[in-house]
């Protein structure tokens, strides 16, 4: 293995100006749980490894106007334990608890999970379903990118070489029902066979005012099943409606067969999982 160089940064200005002036490719990391594996497998081409973990500005979970903002260095352990997140977005707290193992969650970050852009990322699918925006900064620019624009294809993002993810912005919304779900070979340390979220905003007569359905590991990137959302919107939540949703989900996704599951199984179970959420919502769970 070629020798790599490690650099740690203690301020945002310092790392952004380095990113701006570097001519060589570099690899940014915080928790090192993905980068560490890639390094071992010789998959990191960059010679310079830049550690963002010691930048204080990249810590914090706060509400700012209409968004919940999670800074880039926040680990899944801290996200799953955060009282604000447990209250506003319990599905994100639950998804965070399903990532890896306790030791992985102590270091792995949501920002890193999003940037790895795996089709099966458990934190990523929540960000996808809740229409999160990615905050990217460079020395002379700052922008917010919708997550479905940020991740264009498998393991590919819209980040420029001089940019750093600084935070994830989640639009605040009063969801009546919100659930993260996942099927894996085992609970810990298993990549999802299918994961996803269902979020519903219901009026007092259980009419569906707004709905989000997102699924992971059934396409090259996480997806929103917009046809199913359209089908549900404006209708009253009922047993009959729930019984119709599984076939709609199955007709709108085209998963592949891989080492973890067959395409048919993924298609079938996706329908079951979404239907189950609607039934749970109906029972007020």
């Amino acid at each position, binding site marked *: 293995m070629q*020798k*790599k*160089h*490690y*650099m*740690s940064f203690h301020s945002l200005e310092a790392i952004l100006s380095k990113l701006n002036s570097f001519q060589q490719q570099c690899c940014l990391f915080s928790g*090192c*749980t993905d980068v*560490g*594996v890639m*390094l*071992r*497998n010789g998959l990191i081409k960059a010679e310079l*490894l830049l*550690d963002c*973990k010691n930048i204080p500005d990249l810590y914090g979970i706060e509400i700012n106007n209409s968004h919940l903002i999670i800074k880039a260095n926040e680990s899944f352990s801290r996200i799953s334990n955060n009282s604000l997140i447990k209250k506003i977005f319990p599905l994100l707290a639950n998804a965070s608890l399903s990532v*890896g*193992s*306790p*030791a*992985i969650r*102590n*270091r792995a970050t949501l920002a890193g999970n999003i940037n790895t852009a795996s089709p099966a990322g458990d934190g990523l699918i929540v960000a996808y379903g809740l229409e999160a925006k990615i905050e990217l900064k460079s020395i002379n620019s700052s922008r917010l990118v919708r997550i479905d624009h940020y991740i264009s294809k498998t393991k590919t993002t819209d980040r420029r070489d001089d940019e750093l993810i600084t935070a994830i912005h989640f639009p605040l919304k009063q969801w009546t029902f919100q659930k993260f779900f996942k099927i894996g070979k085992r*609970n*810990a*340390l298993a990549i999802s066979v299918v994961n996803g979220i269902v979020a519903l905003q219901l009026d007092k007569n259980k009419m569906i005012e707004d709905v989000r359905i997102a699924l992971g590991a059934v396409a090259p990137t996480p997806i929103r099943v917009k046809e199913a959302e359209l089908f549900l919107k404006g209708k009253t939540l009922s047993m009959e409606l729930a019984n119709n949703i599984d076939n709609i989900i199955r007709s709108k996704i085209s998963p592949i067969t891989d080492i973890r599951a067959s395409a048919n199984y993924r298609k079938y179970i996706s329908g079951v999982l979404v239907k189950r959420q609607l039934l749970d919502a109906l029972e007020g769970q």
Partner: protein
Amino acid sequence: MSTSFFLNGVLVEATSNKTTPLLKVIRDEFFLTGTKSGCETGECGACLVLLDDIAVNSCLVLLGEIEGKTITTIEGLNKDGILDQVQVAFAELGALQCGFCTPGMIIAAKALLMHNPHPTRDEILIGLSGNLCRCTGYEQIVEAVESILPYRTK
């Protein structure tokens, strides 16, 4: 350039490249072979150590990251030769078969109890969920952790 950190209470200087996994540094530079090398990809938990009292997979920590930090390995759990109560419980209840996963299991249990002094059985299962025992001796391991709980002060 060397990296300074506290290893089991002693300030040490490691001379490996800063992108070397901590696991390799602990075993090959300091000859502390209690920390086991299993999958080297964060999936088995055999290499767990405490980094400032938080359990981490040492195979996924780079040496450069721990400058000035405190690392505790299985060798550092005893106090003046007296075993930690988690170590005693594992020995007393025979919570091991081949023993390869034991250091990682004990570190995981120690970290769990440091942050949650009275875990439920489910919480113990989650706390140990990142550690694989290929002998599948999980039952005794969970029992060993549970056996400590009555002796802990609220």
